[in-house]
């Protein structure tokens, strides 16, 4: 750990590496005064997997399956953003039907991700019964994903120029049934997250990100929308069939009439987005035109076209956590000359600093989780107090968070 000057009354605690998403595990170094966080420093990159380097040695079709493995939750957004970039370089036109199918899969992924997040957030503050309830709902979303794509997590549905599997009329009843199941449970979820007194105590006024900070630090996704910034690639620059559908930006003032930019607002945004996604899927099923699902079904022919392509392109997509950004440069070679992947958490790391400043140690889990990073690696936490080092692990931190909830409830 880096030596840092701290004043007599403060001490340092490093927390990490946390695994926020993609290849960005992160390490926090906190300067603490008693229980209060005075300053935060963020260090990244404990498990860099060289995905981009590997990709520059593979052909675009192989990269689709590599990109799918960047993140387990956004296993659809990454290959799709890559496909968008490549299609733009090579001038491949996507059939209209495929545009609609792509929306359905994207929104189903959003439902999966947001409900998963809701469960994790509940767990962080000690509501494990809510965790089980939300993940029970998510199970239905995974079943539908399996029904539509053949896989539950890595969906393998993306193809450059379209998608790999069609959704036929006989599949509609299952989709409608699942959407109705979500709608039936939505009111219950809303009541738990937005009306519960303890939830409000832990989340209101906590982890605030102001609108100005969100803009300056280039935050994206629900994190920035909860601070009142209208930024959503689906609407700003509609790709797929999003331009044909009827929906609007989700900011917390839609529900409460005000924007605070706290954890509570981030919960509101995600919950409303689940409802929006259900609506978007239903709109797609109504409006979907007949036609092809992929522009070139023969893979060797497609690869030959891509080998002749030259130029650079970008693919932008609104993933559940924010904008996924892929840049591709092709130079008439088998493999791309350059490939840059930018996951949403990359931009949502710096906003953690103003969010965490002034909060308590026990708030770290819920504030860090409120931007929806993958927390799977939060296992090692060490506290340095006057040069003596002792370790705080994830369980300990979690216990402190739960105790704070209990204190507030008492």
């Amino acid at each position: 750990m880096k030596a840092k000057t701290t004043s007599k009354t403060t001490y340092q605690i490093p927390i990490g590496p946390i695994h926020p998403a993609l290849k960005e595990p992160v390490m926090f170094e906190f300067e603490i005064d008693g229980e209060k966080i005075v300053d935060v420093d963020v260090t990244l990159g404990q498990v860099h997997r060289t995905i981009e380097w590997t990709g520059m040695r593979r052909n675009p079709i192989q990269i689709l399956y590599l990109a799918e493995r960047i993140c387990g939750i956004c296993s659809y957004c990454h290959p799709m953003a890559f496909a968008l970039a490549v299609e733009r370089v090579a001038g491949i036109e996507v059939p209209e039907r495929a545009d609609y199918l792509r929306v359905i899969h994207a929104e189903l992924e959003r439902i999966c991700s947001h409900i998963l997040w809701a469960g994790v957030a509940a767990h962080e503050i000690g509501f494990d019964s809510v965790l089980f309830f939300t993940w029970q709902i998510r199970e239905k979303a995974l079943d539908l994903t399996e029904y539509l794509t053949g896989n539950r997590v890595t969906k393998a549905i993306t193809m450059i120029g379209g998608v790999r599997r069609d959704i036929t009329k006989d599949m509609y009843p299952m989709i409608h049934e699942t959407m109705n199941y979500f709608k039936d449970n939505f009111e219950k979820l809303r009541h738990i997250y937005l009306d519960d007194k303890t939830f409000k105590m832990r989340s209101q006024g906590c982890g605030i990100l102001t609108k100005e900070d969100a803009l300056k630090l280039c935050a994206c996704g629900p994190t920035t929308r909860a601070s009142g910034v209208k930024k959503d690639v689906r609407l700003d620059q509609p790709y797929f069939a999003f331009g044909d559908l009827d929906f609007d930006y989700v900011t917390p003032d839609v529900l409460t009439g005000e924007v605070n930019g706290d954890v509570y607002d981030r919960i509101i945004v995600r919950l409303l987005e689940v409802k929006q996604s259900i609506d978007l899927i239903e709109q797609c099923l109504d409006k979907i035109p007949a036609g092809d699902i992929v522009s070139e079904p023969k893979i060797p022919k497609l690869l030959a076209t891509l080998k002749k392509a030259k130029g650079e392109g970008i693919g932008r997509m609104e993933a559940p956590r924010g904008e996924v950004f892929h840049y591709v440069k092709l130079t008439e070679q088998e493999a791309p000359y350059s490939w840059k992947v930018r996951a949403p958490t990359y931009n949502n790391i710096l906003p953690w600093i103003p969010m965490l400043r002034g909060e308590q140690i026990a708030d770290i889990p819920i504030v860090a989780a409120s931007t929806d990073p993958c927390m799977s690696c939060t296992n090692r936490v060490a506290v340095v107090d006057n040069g003596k080092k002792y370790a705080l692990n994830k369980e300990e931190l979690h216990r402190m968070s739960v105790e704070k909830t209990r204190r507030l409830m008492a």
Partner: protein
Amino acid sequence: MTKQLTPEEIVKSFKDEFKIKIKDTRIEKHIAGTKKNELIHIWMSVDRSVFKNVVKHLMTLEKYPHLAVTSGYDMGKTIELVYHFSIYFGVRYREISLNITVELPKSNPTIETITDLIPGALITEQEKQEMLGIKVKGIPKDERVFLSDDFPKGVYPWRKDETGPEKMVRNLHEVKK
């Protein structure tokens, strides 16, 4: 709020301001969906000497331009960086992506920081330093981000020359356990 310019007007405003320092420009229009709405991507290549002023000029069009990320690649004699901005978000169909390419000679691969204008650029500038071996002048946190501290110095993973990572690569099928 200032008036929104059309893509052609945006390119023109940069050309008027910086004349020959703005090299290639192109406006890409892509269509999506049954309504065939247009997506606009502007690409612009600018000279290194005016790069920071270009970003300042961009900030007169939109107070807080969003910087998605900076891409970069090794072109042999030069290193090229591509700054991916987007402006006019918040109104449906109106957002424009602006990709600004800057060429740095390998003999002197330096560029000025823009973190004083856009604080959110910090991580991507740090990443370009360690991955491409460039130097960002005035960067507030001159440290590695993604590479670990024990990764050898002087090896830059995205370089395609002798400072690249090729010699560190071991193919599993060639290595006996």
